[in-house]
């Protein structure tokens, strides 16, 4: 999917506004305008709402973030555990976590739309909710483009299409800018470390590879089969990355960095190019991926300065 180049500086007159709405709605694979809202979710099921959703339950932290971002945060009546951004999200009733959903609680909240995430919710739970007669919109975003499209689609369902389109445009523009600035520089070999013991990394199918490549890097493990494989230290030594990027959890100094100092043969260690990025930014398929990419690009730029002078 290509990044659309609609300029965010358009000044909408009434007619332009309608045309703008029509364009973005059609682009967002939706049929709208009128009483019924329809969207196909990532299963291929078509969700039909008689009116914009007023009581939404979000079953993933990134879906919560997106909803707040597109101005529909007040529509949320329940959220998954770890929905902690923005601050207002912490006040939402918790309906479950990655192991279990409290189906009774969800029922009692009387939602008219449930946002599910195939990567994190149990298929059986989503199916049960569907069988109980609730509208379940299953999502499965994998790329930056998917995230932008998701913002628009949720905009349709919540009747916040205009804000959503704006935000999506800004998202895309920011990504585009970062790519332009950093993407064409000399490719650095990057190792992204999700976890320390054992060492988990992410392959080419994960969005982090898009971030790395957009900032002018190469994910040394992009070719591995599993999305989140465990790799041995030897494998990392062999790949000899120039930069190691890992998680920064809240304000803890990253312990994983000090563990690498025992392996000075690795280029990244020798060059002291171990960088930490807040884990939530990378892990959540939401609007803050821009921040993640920004941090990633700055890290790689610093590394580039070190290596190339």
């Amino acid at each position: 999917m290509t990044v659309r180049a609609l300029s965010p500086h358009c000044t909408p007159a009434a007619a332009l506004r309608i045309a703008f709405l029509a364009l973005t709605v059609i682009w967002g694979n939706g049929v709208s305008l009128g009483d019924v809202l329809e969207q196909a979710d990532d299963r291929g099921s078509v969700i039909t709402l008689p009116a914009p959703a007023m009581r939404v339950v979000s079953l993933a932290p990134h879906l919560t973030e997106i909803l707040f971002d597109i101005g529909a945060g007040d529509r949320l009546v329940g959220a998954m555990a770890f929905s902690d951004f923005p601050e207002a999200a912490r006040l939402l009733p918790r309906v479950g976590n990655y192991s279990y959903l409290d189906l009774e609680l969800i029922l009692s909240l009387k939602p008219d739309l449930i946002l599910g995430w195939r990567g994190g919710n149990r298929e059986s739970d989503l199916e049960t909710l569907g069988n109980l007669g609730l509208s379940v919109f299953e999502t499965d975003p994998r790329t930056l483009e998917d995230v932008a499209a998701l913002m628009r689609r949720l905009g349709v369902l919540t009747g916040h299409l205009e804000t959503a389109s704006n935000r999506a445009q800004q998202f895309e523009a920011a990504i585009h800018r970062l790519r332009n600035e950093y993407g064409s520089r000399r490719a650095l070999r990057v190792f992204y470390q999700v976890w320390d013991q054992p060492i988990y990394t992410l392959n080419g199918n994960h969005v982090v590879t898009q971030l790395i490549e957009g900032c002018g890097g190469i994910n040394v493990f992009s070719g591995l089969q599993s999305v989140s494989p465990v790799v041995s230290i030897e494998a990392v030594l062999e790949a000899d990355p120039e930069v190691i990027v890992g998680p920064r959890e809240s304000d803890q100094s990253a312990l994983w960095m000090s563990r690498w100092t025992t392996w000075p043969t690795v280029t990244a260690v020798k060059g002291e190019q171990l960088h930490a990025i807040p884990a939530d930014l990378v892990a959540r398929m939401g609007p803050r991926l821009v921040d993640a990419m920004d941090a990633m690009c700055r890290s790689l730029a610093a590394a580039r300065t070190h290596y190339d002078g």
Partner: protein
Amino acid sequence: MKHAGKNPSARRRATLSGLIVLVVIALALSLTRGSVDLSWGDAAAALMGKGNALASAVVLDLRLPRALSALVVGSALALAGVLMQVLLRNPLADPYVLGTSGGSAVLVLIAMMAGAPHSVVPVAAGAGALISMVLLLLLARSSGDWSSSRLLLTGIVLASGWGALISFLLSVSPAQQIQGMLFWLMGDLQPVTPGWWRSGVVLAALMLSLILARDLNLLAEGDLRARSLGLRTGLLRLAILLGASALTAVAVTLAGPVGFVGLVIPHMMRLLVGPDHRLLIPSSMLAGGALLILSEMTARILWAPQQLPVGVITAFIGVPVFLLLLQKGASRGRP
């Protein structure tokens, strides 16, 4: 001299009636308690089809199927435990000791790894249990020795083999799937009704066990003695093995390997009602069903909105109760 002082069949009837009441109370509690608290009136109305929408959905679609499943699983495991203990003449025997749950687990984990839809899981569980049983029979047949100790040893080795495979599968599985696998392994009720065929298997096993109850009493005295009293022990033991495996398969397809029930309920009931299988069998099934219904309810409530695996709760409830009974039993003289 009258045995036990009172009319034994009256005492039997009283015990069974008491246990049935316990099951009914457990069911009633589990239908009214949860994240959404309902009154007895609401629940009753929902059962009769006249409740408000929320109560009906919660009671009929969420709680009732789980409670019925818990009843089926608990009674199946309890009966399987009774049968295993008389088959192997070993008080440490539980339904899984001969490897049935290991086989189920391996096939379920393979299905999960392959990304199969969750509706495949019960089928995989059942197939795994049956494969394990067939393997056990083949191994026992080839050695020619069907004695309890040999069967137990063969089963333990088979279970260990499955265990190794399970560890292997867990270590190579992608991180996202491990959580689901672990929860299945801890014993977790599927959100489905038990269904006709499962209930049918459990009822058939109950009928058959009651018919054979006196034979089981004899078998408890030892193989040689039972044969000297006219029992065809070879056939009987094969029937017990098949019955126990079928029951375990039913339980595992509904709830994964829920532990503790099959091991401790038979012991508990033996302390309470004695070793006569005519009474031990139905009381164990009722007690097992009640325990699992209450455990399922607690699993939903204790840590809400998070749900705990049922297998964890059965142990937490059962251990102190069992210890209490052991103390009382020791003072009365029954080992």
